[in-house]
């Protein structure tokens, strides 16, 4: 029925469908560039999937042990696993607390809302250098000084300062200027402005960043142990080097459950906060 209304008066030529624009040269260049980088990168690391088939029996053997974990390691509360897990939790708690406290101060120095331009520029570039090193590098340097959990705590603290300070500084940049102007008009000092107008506004965001890094810390402290900075990671490396895959599987299961539980818990809390 709509056919009738759509019919064109006879005699007029049928309009041509507009042609699709050709792909932009930038897009073509980008895709070609990505392909080129991939080829070079693949060549640099000798990309090959052949081992998946060749080495499959070896992996199957390990997986066979992994699916039969040593449950005693989990059920016995005095096992090495629980001691290591408590250590990891303690490391994460301390690093999160200390790191986040320092980060709040650094964030105030790293935003143009709360700091003079010179201070803010210097803080920002120092922070970006600190963030560019992986937490592992800090742990390696600190482990050379002392062993045990202390280097892990310090490495994670630095790592947390980097992340929380960056995110919080961005929140500070975005605060509502109204209260700030009111305080300026009343002649407030920098500290009073920060205390009365900035911190109350960013507190919920800040708390959610703290929870977020706590989550990251639990994961990261698993990694830190691998370089000898205490915690569950050390246990993983121990069992791996001994090829004790049944115990390793028990550790993996527990880490898996703990990480998921903390993820869910912090998501729940963060949703309430923001």
């Amino acid at each position, binding site marked *: 029925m709509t056919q009738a209304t759509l019919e064109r008066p006879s005699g007029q030529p049928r309009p041509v469908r507009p042609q699709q624009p050709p792909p932009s040269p*930038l897009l073509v260049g*980008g895709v070609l560039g990505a392909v080129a*980088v991939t080829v*070079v*990168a*693949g060549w*640099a*690391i*000798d*990309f090959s999937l052949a*081992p998946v088939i060749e*080495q*499959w029996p070896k*992996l199957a053997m*390990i997986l066979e042990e*992994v699916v039969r974990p040593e449950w005693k390691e989990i059920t016995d509360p005095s096992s090495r696993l629980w001691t290591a897990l*408590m*250590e990891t*939790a*303690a*490391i994460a*708690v*301390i690093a999160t*607390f*200390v790191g986040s406290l320092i980060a709040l101060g650094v964030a105030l120095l790293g935003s143009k809302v709360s700091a003079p331009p010179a201070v803010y520029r210097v803080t920002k570039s120092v922070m*970006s*250098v600190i963030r*560019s*090193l*992986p937490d*592992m*590098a800090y742990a*390696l*340097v*600190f*482990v*050379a*000084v*002392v062993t*045990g*959990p*202390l280097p892990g*705590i*310090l490495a994670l603290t630095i790592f947390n300062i980097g992340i929380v300070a960056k995110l919080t500084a961005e929140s500070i940049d975005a605060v509502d200027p109204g209260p700030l102007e009111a305080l300026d008009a009343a002649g407030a000092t920098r500290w009073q402005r920060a205390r009365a107008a900035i911190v109350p506004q960013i507190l919920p965001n800040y708390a959610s960043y703290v929870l977020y890094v706590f989550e990251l810390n639990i*994961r990261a402290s*698993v*990694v830190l142990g*691998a*370089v000898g900075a205490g915690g569950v*990671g050390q246990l*993983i*490396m121990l069992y*791996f080097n001994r090829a004790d895959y049944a115990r*390793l599987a028990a550790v*993996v299961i527990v*880490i*898996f459950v703990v*990480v*998921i539980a903390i*993820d869910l818990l912090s998501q729940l809390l963060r949703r309430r906060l923001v």
Partner: protein
Amino acid sequence: MTAETVARPKPPPKWPYTLAGLTLIGIVLIAGWSLDDAKWERLPLFPGEILQYAGQMLDGVLTWPGAHPEGQADPELTYGDWWLQSLKLMGESVALAWIGTCVGALFSFPLAFLAASNTAPLVLRVPVRLFFNAIRAVPEILLAVIVMLPLFGLNPMAGAMAIGVHSIGSLGKLTLENIEAVDPRPVEAVAAAGASWWQRVRTAVIPQMLPETVAFWLYRFEVNIRASAILGVVSAGGIGALLNRVLRGREWEWGGIMLAVIIIVTILVDQLSAALRHRILHGAEATVVAV
């Protein structure tokens, strides 16, 4: 005058904050006390020692690359060799991060369509989402140690695949969030014109979510470069293995050069990737502002 008669509003009570603060401090103290081999007494000495080592590292970085370091077995060795070796290994780290990101992107992209509420039925959504979450919960290093090292041996392929599989989880989650955030109107229009599922996805969903998703791939690449340094410690390729050995051997000058290379390359790649992401998300006009 009258101002004094008007009662100032009472500030909200402070005690809940005080209580929360004290509880937190309590937890932290208990945590600190439970670490009995933490050697807290070493803490005051720490800054001094770190500064001393940092000074030695800086010496290494600032020495003319043609000079020969002292105390090395090979008299021909120069600082320049250390720079070149670090650069080469860092290149390997970047390469394996790139391949890992490619693997992650390649698998997460189609899977995300099976996990988004506007493109997949519930029966598919739940298992795929569970899969994403499960993968994300396993740290890369565990994947590398248990699965990839036995498969690929001690070489960069193991690291690349560990990063790749881990990335499927995080990229998948972000991609599916992008898919769910698309404007539903074009999708409805295409559906009204009688498009099949594939046509709907191809013409209405992908064009909307692709720029943001590609930007996320690039961001993930930045994250993966940092992760690849960690994988080196378990000998899954990249600069981490040598860094581990050198810093454990307390060869601070050499270590300083390696850290400098890591910082320089990471910052360069971050800048490049940030510029690209900006270009992808905001188009050509905004690029000038970004740089």
